[in-house]
């Protein structure tokens, strides 16, 4: 009788442990059968495997003329709401004065370009900084999403599942670069996708396409022949807020210390 009881208890414990493992770590059970499979695209004309790419962008501050064609093109391409405050990419103007004060302005995301700033006197140096989602290697926004609506694709692009997003705004709070906003109509989080619909079809993002001075360079980070890889080799590269350890994949050449 005693044997029976112990044997049964062992069985029960085994089953319970298995169950608990299954509930807590479902991947643990399935990981062995599942290898990396290519994506089955609904649009069959797409022949793109996210596992074969790592995308990044380079921005040359010395080439940016502040025309704002990028933010304008982005709004058109991605149907970003036309009213101000909603931008997937935007251009900031930095004016560092002789007394160390810095004026930063960004009139309507620069979609109509810039005009002379009324306070631009005693300016020591001045330049434009295009900004967008940094598609961080360690994205804080993905960590905080409670439902898995914000995620990092295998090619390193951080995307938002608009159907799955609750609109809780955690990610907007978490992003240190202010790259996210809540869409006023759908009430879901939105951000730059590197124009995912374009890059899977072999096109460049709209902002890169529209840039008249090639201040933006888009390409593969892992392939040495890519123009972005060369850009990183040939220039002094900085990223935004490196101390946060988010490992951004938007690289700035000739970035001023003043840029936040």
């Amino acid at each position, binding site marked *: 009788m005693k044997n*029976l*009881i112990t044997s*049964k*208890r062992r*069985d*029960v414990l085994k*089953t319970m442990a298995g169950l608990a493992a299954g*509930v807590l770590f*479902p*991947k643990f059970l399935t990981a062995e059968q599942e290898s990396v*499979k290519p*994506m*089955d*695209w*609904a*649009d069959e004309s797409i022949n793109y495997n*996210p596992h074969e790419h790592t995308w990044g962008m380079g921005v040359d501050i010395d*080439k*940016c*003329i*502040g*025309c704002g*064609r990028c933010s304008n*093109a982005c709004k*058109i*391409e*991605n*149907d970003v709401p036309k009213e101000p405050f909603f931008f997937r990419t935007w251009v900031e*103007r*930095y*004016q560092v004065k002789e007394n160390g004060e810095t004026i930063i302005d960004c009139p309507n995301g620069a979609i*109509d*370009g*810039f*005009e002379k700033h009324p306070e631009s006197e005693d*300016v020591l140096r*001045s*330049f*434009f900084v295009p900004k967008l989602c940094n598609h961080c290697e360690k994205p804080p926004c993905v960590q905080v999403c409670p439902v*898995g*609506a914000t*995620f990092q*694709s295998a090619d390193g692009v951080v*995307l*938002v*599942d608009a*159907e*799955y997003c609750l609109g809780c705004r955690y990610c907007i709070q978490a992003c240190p670069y202010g790259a996210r906003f809540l869409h006023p109509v759908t009430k879901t989080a939105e951000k730059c*996708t590197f124009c*995912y*619909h*374009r890059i899977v079809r072999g*096109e*460049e993002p*709209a902002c890169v*396409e*529209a840039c*008249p*001075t*090639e201040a933006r360079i888009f390409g593969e980070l892992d392939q040495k022949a890519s123009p972005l890889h060369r850009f990183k080799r040939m220039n002094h590269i900085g990223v935004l807020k490196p101390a946060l350890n988010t490992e951004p994949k938007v690289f700035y050449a000739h970035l001023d210390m003043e840029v936040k």
Partner: protein
Amino acid sequence: MLSIFRNIRGFMMNSWLSKAPEQIKLLVVVVILVISAFLIIRPLLIPDDFGELGHFRTGALNDAVAIEFKYAGRASCVECHDDMTEMLAAGYHKKLSCEVCHGPLAGHIEDSDENEPSFPRERTLCPVCHEYLSSRPTGFPQIVSQSHNSLKSCVTCHEPHDPAPPEVPSECSACHGEISRSKAVSHHMDVECEFCHTTPELHKISPRQYRPDKPQNREFCGQCHTKNASNDTDAPLINLATHETRYDCWQCHYPHLPEAR
């Protein structure tokens, strides 16, 4: 599943649990119910394709690529407009995509008759890039549009597809900016410079050697401003025979801004 429950039941019957107080038994049942409810409901709430490629819905990738192109890309323009793109590729604007000026043209690629590109001729487009701003990189060609041939469309002097600065000015205002700005806001704005100043073509190349002429007498102004002048403008009319006959017109009236006193 069944065997699990049978095991649990046997375990409960035979162990110390059978001697446990009633409320503990109830608690065990409640805990088991909660766990099984969680196990049943969880798969119903989570989409089938969640977690296939990571902690997200695989369908989200399909949603992300379902947007239609608005910008076709510069390679698409070359297919039909190779003459223009060749010209563009040889000039200063070689890095410029067609769609920066002509607007997003994916629709034009689909149906070129329905979706006409825009051909902007206003003075507002070029200054977006070329207006002088101290923040722009040194060496980038910039103008102050207020004083640069104001009121003239940029394309009058500059071919946007090959925007080399014009060597020979095609407009008087390129050099005579101050006069042209005064004239532009005066009643004489529609009077061409050459109406009053006959200008030899060589003046543009060697301006001091070949000079334009000036009106010589009162009768020249009288062409428009005498009572019997045959013109359809609203020009103020005078009688040449009685109006301050001792003076030439331009001794009192500045022709480039005649309303000035």
